[in-house]
C-alpha cells in the first residue's frame, strides 16, 4: 500500500463515490459525487469501476505527495492547471506520481469539481455501501469530513506499466438544463411557471453540495408555500417562501416542506453541478418518456466510457 498525503487543500474537497442508498427512509441522504460523469472518467482511466471512490476537488486547488510507493492517478472534470513536480500534467490522462513526487492542482478555471481517480482505489470502510463523505451526518471514510492538510489516504500502489491512458473527452452539449415537471408544479402560478422557463437564472455564491440557489425573478406561489413534507431527489427544484428556486443536490435533506416544481433530468445533473457561482442557466421542460430515454442513454454512456480510453506511450520528454 501507498499513501497520498494531502499537503494543501481548499474547502469542499472530499472523498466521494456514487453515494449511499437504503437509508433515505431514515433521513440519511445519498451524498456522492456532484458530477458522476467526471467521476466515471477519472475512475475508468485508472482501471477502476466507474462508481468507485475518488477525491472530489472543490473550486480551489490542492496538493498531494505520494508516500511509500508510486501512485497512479487521473484527473477529470473542471479544467484547471496541474503540475507533477513542477512540470505540466494534464486532465483526462493518467499521471504516475513517483514516490515522494508532488502533484499540485490549481483552482478551477471553468466548472467547479475535478475528480482525482486513483489506481487501486482508496482504502476505507463503506457505510450503506459508500465511502462518500457526508459532513453533517459524520459519515465518510477514511475521514468523515472534507479533507484537511495532513490527511493521509491509504491508496493502491501503482502497477509497473510501460503505458499510460488517455480519455478522448466528450463534447458537452450546451443548451438549457432539462427538467421534468412535478411533483408540485401546480404549487406556483402559471405566470411563475412561464417565468421559470423564460428567465435566465444565476447560480448564487451561497451554493454548496446541499443545493444551488438560483437568483432571478421571484416565482409566486399559487396557494402558500408550505406543503406536508415529502421526499426529495437530486435535482429537485424547490421554491421556498422567497420565490427563489433552490436546486437540491447530493447532500440535500431527504424530505422537505416546500413545493418542488420540477426535477433536473439525470443526464443534465453533472453539467448543472459544474456551473460556477455567478454562472447563468436556463431551463427547458422535457416530457417524462423523453427524459427516461435520455436517462437510459446516459447510463449506457457511463458504462461505455472505457471504450473511449486509449493507451498512450509514456511521453519521454516529460520523464
Amino acid at each position, binding site marked *: 500500500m501507498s499513501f497520498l498525503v494531502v499537503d494543501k487543500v481548499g474547502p469542499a474537497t472530499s472523498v466521494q463515490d456514487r453515494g449511499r442508498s437504503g437509508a433515505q427512509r*431514515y433521513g440519511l441522504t445519498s451524498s456522492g459525487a456532484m458530477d458522476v460523469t467526471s467521476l466515471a472518467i477519472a475512475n475508468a482511466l485508472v482501471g477502476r469501476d466507474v462508481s468507485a471512490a475518488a477525491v472530489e476537488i472543490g473550486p480551489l486547488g490542492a496538493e498531494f505527495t505520494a508516500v511509500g510507493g508510486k501512485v497512479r492517478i487521473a484527473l477529470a472534470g473542471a479544467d484547471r492547471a496541474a503540475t507533477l513536480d513542477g512540470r505540466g500534467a494534464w486532465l483526462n490522462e493518467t499521471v504516475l506520481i513517483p514516490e515522494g513526487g508532488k502533484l499540485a492542482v490549481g483552482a478551477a478555471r471553468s466548472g467547479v469539481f475535478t475528480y482525482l481517480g486513483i489506481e487501486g482505489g482508496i482504502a476505507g470502510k463503506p457505510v450503506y455501501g459508500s465511502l462518500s463523505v457526508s459532513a453533517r451526518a459524520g459519515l465518510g471514510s477514511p475521514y468523515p469530513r472534507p479533507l484537511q492538510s495532513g490527511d493521509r489516504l491509504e491508496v493502491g500502489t501503482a502497477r509497473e506499466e510501460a503505458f499510460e491512458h488517455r480519455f478522448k473527452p466528450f463534447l458537452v452539449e450546451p443548451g438549457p438544463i432539462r427538467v421534468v415537471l412535478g411533483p408540485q408544479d401546480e404549487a406556483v402560478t402559471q405566470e411563475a411557471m412561464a417565468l421559470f422557463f423564460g428567465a435566465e437564472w444565476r447560480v448564487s455564491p451561497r451554493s454548496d453540495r446541499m443545493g444551488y440557489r438560483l437568483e432571478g425573478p421571484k416565482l409566486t406561489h399559487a396557494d402558500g408555500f408550505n406543503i406536508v413534507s415529502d421526499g426529495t431527489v437530486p435535482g429537485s427544484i424547490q421554491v421556498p417562501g422567497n420565490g427563489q428556486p433552490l436546486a437540491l443536490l447530493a447532500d440535500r*435533506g431527504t424530505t422537505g416542506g416546500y413545493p418542488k416544481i420540477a426535477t433536473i433530468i439525470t443526464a443534465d445533473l453533472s453539467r448543472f453541478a459544474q456551473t460556477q457561482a455567478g454562472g447563468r442557466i436556463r431551463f427547458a421542460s422535457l416530457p417524462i418518456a423523453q427524459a427516461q430515454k*435520455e*436517462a437510459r442513454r446516459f447510463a449506457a454512456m457511463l458504462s461505455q466510457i472505457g471504450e473511449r480510453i486509449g493507451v498512450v506511450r509514456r511521453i519521454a520528454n516529460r520523464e
Partner: protein
Amino acid sequence: MTVSYPRLLPCGDSALVVEFGNSIEPELNRRVLAFDALLAQEQLRAIRETVPTYRSLLVHYDPTLIGYEELGAKLMDFATRKGLPSRKGRHWRVPVAYGGEFGIDLDAVAERAGLTTEEVIARHSGAQYRVYMLGFLPGFTYLGGLDPKLATPRRQEPRLEAPAGMIAIGGIQTGIQCIAAPSGWNILGRTPVRTYHPRRDPIFLIEPGDHVTFYPIAMREWGALDRAGEAGEWIAEMVDA
C-alpha cells in the same frame, strides 16, 4: 380542483411519488407504511429504495429497467389493493432532560400556552406520539400527537445550530433532532438517545410507524446517560415489542 387518491406524480426520470393524501393523520400514514411494506415484500428488481413520509411514498427506481408508465400502473394496482399488510410498530420510552440550558425555549412555550413549565413538561411527557416519518436529517424523528395546547409556531429566525438530541416543537408537531443543525423549532429539552449513531449496530433505532413516549430525567443523570449513548448504548427502552 378535486384530486382523487392514491395518485401518481413524476419526480424526475428516476423516481416517482405515490401520494395517498395531503394531510397529517394516522390512518393516512398507516396506508403509506402498509404500501411500503407490500413493496418490500414484492421485491421489485427495478426499485432502488423507498422513502415513506406523512402522506406519500417516494420510490427511487432504475429507469433502464422499467419506464414511468409501466411501473406507475403496477404501483397503482398495489396501492389500491384491499387488506394491505400492516406492521405492528414498536413503542420506545425516551428520556429527556427538560428545561435549563438544554431547553432554552421551555419558558417561552409555557408562557405562550399560559402554563407553568412543570405543566408543559407533564403534558409533553404525558402523551404517546406516533412516528410519522424520519427525514430531512439522519434520525430526525417527526412525531404527531402533541397536546394542542403546546402547539407553538416555528421561530421567525431559525437558530443556526440547534444541538444534537434536541427535543422540540414545530407547529403542531414535536420531534427528535439527532445531530446538530439549523432549526426553527422551539427547544424544550435534550435526550441522550442517539436515534442515529454511525458507529453503532443498528445505526438507526426508531422506524416510521413506531410510537414514542418521553419521560423526564434530572440534569444530574445527564452526564452518565450521554456517555453511554455516545458509547453505543440504546438508552431508549423498547416496551411491548
